């Protein structure tokens, strides 16, 4: 049994707007083990990014607030930490990679300045030690001639290289958990393949736990050990990647997998889910997928389905499990 790094219990995050409360994340629970990659998949607006930001407590306050639940990182509930203590966690214990490297890097500072910043902040090393640490972080993400790169600015690098630099910054303080929010969406196909392979290698070397937020099932299949499927603020199904693809249970998971065009299969028509995700301001009664579901029964439209364990690490929130 491997060590649990992060345990999220019944996390609830809301945004308070003039139109009312938007429950972006509504009772989400999951855990990540050491050296494991957990995928969180879902469509835009399902709450996957907000889940990631909640763990780091980086919500846009005061509109966004965590209203309930626990986020336990190696025994400490992050929600009970002061702002100052939290700053010691960010970047050191947990770090994050965002979608677009051009917006997560500062265009007017050199790469060296930007990597050095977090190392200096968190590790209290001498100048010499800092530089060594920085170069080894850049080596970890396989950047050729890192010493030269330190003096360059982000605009001088290609998209793939920039995202590697972001990866190096994230890994520079040896975090225990890495949250990657759509890290390859802005990259080209062959560069994405390179980056994902690199990710796996870094994980094998450092045993870092990764939460991989994505909408791309191809990336999930390639990268993740376990997957949680999110829909309208809730996780509807959690399973090992293999089981999720072989035997998806929840109708949303099934529909989502079926609607992805496959390169190795030629179909004449794609399966498509009718309608669109509900507005988070105006959620349907009962199961949130009910209005779009093709196999719904009466109870689905009335009561929220309970989460049921149906196997080893496989759970689903669905009324028709039995």
């Amino acid at each position, binding site marked *: 049994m491997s060590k649990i790094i992060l345990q999220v219990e019944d996390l609830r995050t809301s945004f308070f707007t003039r139109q009312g409360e938007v429950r972006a994340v509504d009772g989400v629970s999951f855990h990540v083990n050491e050296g494991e990659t957990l995928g969180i998949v879902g469509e835009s607006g399902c709450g996957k990014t907000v889940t990631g930001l909640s763990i780091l407590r980086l919500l846009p306050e005061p509109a966004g607030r965590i209203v309930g639940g626990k986020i336990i990182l190696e025994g400490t509930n992050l929600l009970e930490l002061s702002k100052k203590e939290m700053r010691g966690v960010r970047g050191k214990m947990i770090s994050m990679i965002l979608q677009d490297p051009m917006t997560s890097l500062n265009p007017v500072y050199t790469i060296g300045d930007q990597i050095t910043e977090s190392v200096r902040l968190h590790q209290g090393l001498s100048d010499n030690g800092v530089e060594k640490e920085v170069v080894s972080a850049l080596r970890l993400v396989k950047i050729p001639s890192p010493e030269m790169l330190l003096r360059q600015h982000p605009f001088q690098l290609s*998209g793939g290289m920039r995202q590697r630099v972001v990866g190096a910054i994230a890994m520079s303080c040896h975090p225990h958990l890495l949250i990657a929010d759509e890290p390859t969406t802005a990259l080209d*196909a062959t560069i994405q393949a390179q980056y994902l392979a690199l990710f796996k290698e870094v994980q094998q070397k450092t045993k870092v736990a990764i939460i991989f937020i994505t909408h791309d099932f191809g990336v999930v*299949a*390639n990268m993740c050990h376990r997957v949680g499927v999110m829909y309208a603020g809730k996780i509807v199904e959690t399973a090992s990647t293999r089981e999720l693809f072989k035997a998806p249970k929840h109708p949303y998971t099934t529909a989502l997998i079926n609607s992805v*065009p496959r*390169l190795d299969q030629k179909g004449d028509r794609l399966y*498509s889910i009718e309608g669109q995700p509900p507005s988070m301001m105006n959620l349907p009664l009962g199961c949130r997928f009910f209005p779009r579901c093709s196999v719904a029964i009466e109870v689905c439209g009335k009561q929220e389905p309970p989460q049921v364990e149906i196997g080893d690490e496989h759970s689903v929130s669905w009324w028709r499990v039995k």
Partner: protein
Amino acid sequence: MAETLLEGRELTKHYPVTKELLHHTVDWIRAVNGISFTIERGKTLSLVGESGAGKTTTAKAVLLQEKLTSGSILFKGKDLHRFTPSQLKMEYRPKVQAVQQNPWSSMNPRMRVRDIIAEPLVVNTKQSKKEIRSRVLELLEQVGLRSDHADHYPHEFSGGQRQRIAVARALALHPSLVVLDEPVSALDVSIRAQIMNLLKDLQAKHNLSYLVIAHNLATVRYMSHSVAIMYLGQIVEYGDAEKLFEQPLHPYTRALISASLLTLPEDEGEGSKQIILSGEMPSPLNPPPGCRFHTRCGEIRDRCSNVVPELRVVGQQRVRCHHYD
């Protein structure tokens, strides 16, 4: 034998790199280098490649948004150079329409859907208001929207619905060719399928031809009849979509396909080894000599780095690679 609607012959587009002060040209960015293709009536040709491959430049040339450096485009067998400006306006532009990638930036937020869809009709035809109104409603119905949607503004719609509005606008003038620049890549997974199905239905109904620009191979396989794989301004492989995906010949095509296959973690190492290319696409400012792909190719030979391979016919495909000499 299907009828050829549009043909591109040796299309080339070089952008000048100028020195700021006197605007004299110091170099050229070779965005597109002598590519040729044909689009048949009622069929789909997809241009596939990574950013910088020249696919959007090609699409812009077809839409007459970019002037070609050399090469010619033939529409229904007639060279566009031989069209007079008024003929282009009457006979070409209305027949070649476009749907852009991002439905959030391709519409004027201050116009109602009714006016967005009607605009091409107002500009290009002399129809009465009543005729236009009924055509707009007909178009809305064709793309699966309701007639009461006509009085709303774009911000009131989801991405999928906006893309439907963009399709309706493109169809307003009964085009024969629609250029679809990454038509679904900005949309969510479950919505993509809806739009792709819609596009296929409309193609069958109106015998439309599509020129699709895409980087997602799975989407391409589902949509296309023929495919051209582009790399650094050249077509490296071109052929029937089915054949090309079943038996890719060029090493770059194989790498692209490998990158988009759905492989479960457990399947790895069981024969289907993933191909991961090293390095990145070189700059079109200074393309490598010989085969342009040789800097990243895993199957390189002596001549690859100095002799430029021709696009030659192998089986039913055309491929630009020394392995098939």
